[in-house]
């Protein structure tokens, strides 16, 4: 197990390298620059700008410098947000996104697993059909439609919740964004749980458990859940990647100052240091989280030996 973990951690470094190089390459290869606006700059001004940001050096020098800085965790200063270092921005924005993403996934797990289990245990009953229908709707409504609709309904019509602001965590302003973000995951997790539980409940060892005289409740919680939830665990890895993109959209819709929002703005502003900083951060987070999920899976299924 330990060797497996170390192997995976080591792999992160070259992957990070590839991702960041790719990103940097894309930014540089694209025509135009971050300072290109509507106006054409006077050549002298442009030359000054280039010197200031080190753009006058050869590309491999700049590449090398970027890599070197990254290795020291120095992502430089934002090109757009005057005076703020990328690290500062990351430090500020990350907890926001984390709070949002975490709450969303937690909601998704709780609601999804409960619903899916109930649906599986009461297969073909109205609970089953209703929850699967809702799940289907959840998968089908894009979050950028659901979000505004929720705002319209709960914020602007019923005035129950604030429409779009950010109050820190925890607060009522977290509710709608978290629900919006979680919707699609509730749906997926409910479906996965349902099919996983259905499959498990059909197995022989559940029959054995019943033959031992256990109550149905014990059979489900002690015997069925462990195996039935495995698909949900392995889903959680890729889910995180999706969650990130979902966060980007949700933060835009609800005007939340998280990493996602900063990322999009940075892309539009061609704010190279910030883009690279955020991409690096996200990459590490995703890879690290995937590793955690794999480890968790290894614990939950004793037949897997890394």
């Amino acid at each position, binding site marked *: 197990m330990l060797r497996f973990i170390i192997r995976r951690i080591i792999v992160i470094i070259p992957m990070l390298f590839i991702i960041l190089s790719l990103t940097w390459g894309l930014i540089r290869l694209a025509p135009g620059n971050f300072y290109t606006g509507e106006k054409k700059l006077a050549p002298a001004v442009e030359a000054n700008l280039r010197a200031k940001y080190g753009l006058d050096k050869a590309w491999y020098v700049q590449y090398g410098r970027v890599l070197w800085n990254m290795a020291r965790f120095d992502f430089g200063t934002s090109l757009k947000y005057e005076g703020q270092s990328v690290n500062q921005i990351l430090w500020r924005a990350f907890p926001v996104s984390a709070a949002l993403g975490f709450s969303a996934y937690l909601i998704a797990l709780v609601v999804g697993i409960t619903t899916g289990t109930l649906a599986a245990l009461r297969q*073909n009953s109205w609970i089953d059909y209703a929850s699967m229908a809702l799940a289907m709707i959840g998968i089908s409504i894009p979050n950028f439609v659901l979000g505004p609709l929720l705002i319209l309904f709960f914020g602007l019509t019923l005035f129950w919740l604030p429409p779009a602001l950010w109050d820190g965590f925890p607060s009522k302003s977290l509710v709608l964004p978290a629900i919006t973000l979680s919707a699609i995951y509730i749906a997926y997790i409910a479906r996965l749980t349902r099919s996983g539980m259905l499959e498990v409940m059909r*197995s*022989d*060892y559940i*029959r*054995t*458990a*019943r*033959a*031992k*005289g*256990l*109550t149905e409740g014990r059979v489900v919680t*002690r*015997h069925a859940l*462990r*195996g039935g939830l495995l698909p949900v665990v392995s889903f959680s890895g890729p889910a995180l990647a999706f969650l990130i993109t979902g966060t980007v959209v949700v933060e835009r819709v609800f005007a939340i100052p998280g990493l996602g929002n900063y990322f999009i703005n940075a892309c539009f502003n061609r704010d190279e240091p910030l883009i690279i900083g955020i991409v690096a951060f996200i990459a590490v987070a995703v890879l690290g989280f995937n590793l955690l999920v794999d480890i968790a899976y290894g614990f*939950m*299924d*004793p*037949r897997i030996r890394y």
Partner: protein
Amino acid sequence: MSSSNGELLSVKNLRTYFETEDGVLKAVDGIDFELSRGQTLGIVGESGSGKSVASLSIMRLIPNPPGKIVSGEVKLDGDDLLKLSTAEIRKVRGKRVAMIFQDPMTSLNPFMRISKQLMEVTQLHLAYSSAQAYEHALEMLEQVGIADARARADSYPHELSGGMRQRVMIAMALSCRPELLIADEPTTALDVTIQAQILELIKNLKSETRASVILITHDLGVVAGMTDHIVVMYAGKIFECAPTPELFARPGNPYTRGLLRSVPDPTAREQKLYQIPGLPPDLARMPAGCPFAPRCERAEEICHREFPPFVQLAHAHFSLCHFANEVYASAESQTGSRISPPDQA
């Protein structure tokens, strides 16, 4: 509480039907049998004969949609199990009646250590503490012949061999000293060499614990050495029942005769392997008359028309056939089956 006539288990007119897309499947369609204390009963039949469903019905483990125990009486020591509430039947399962299944790989929880799976039974039914249950589990493992039980106890099922897993299942079943053990094809999924060991184990444990055993199998060889009494099932009905030596020596039913003839004789040379022609019937669409008639070599016109009577041939020997007496009589003059049960002690 002992019942009036000393029988441990008395099954009367048990019917278990399944609702399927193709119609109502009559998996078990009116069977009666009895089992005394300390006896071993063998239930023999091809796949689809209803033997497994019968045993699951005794423990009320039939999945409710689509199956249902439609009628009947299953008296364990006088208590009708079919009439018990859900809570009450749970107290019976694992404690008074225990079951072991065919495939130990899938019948044990792959995510749970075997010690825990063993402990569950005693903690539930005998209110053992964890420590007590653990020690008891070790004892049981030793009793079923798993060497080095202490070291093995915390393993997971996939870490054990097939034979060992089945022993664990047996240990689990016998943990609370049940009055009745139902073994549903306990050796079918195992290697031949292990089969003999497991059967021997069941036999020994049975005499030690004084449990009664119902042994379900399609393998006549298994039944010959293990059982006192045999019930032959086909298409959800009992076709013949008799004491074991009697059944092998003097079968009273063409189906039983067919089964016995199907066992290949290693000594006979140049013998064509016999097989009962045809396939078992579709349980959702049973023909009128005798269910075996389409495949029976003795079948006559009446067999296809009328359902056969349950004829008593000897003291404990019954056969479901229009020509039971003839078959029985002709069997007397033959040398009987190639399998003869060993002399029972």
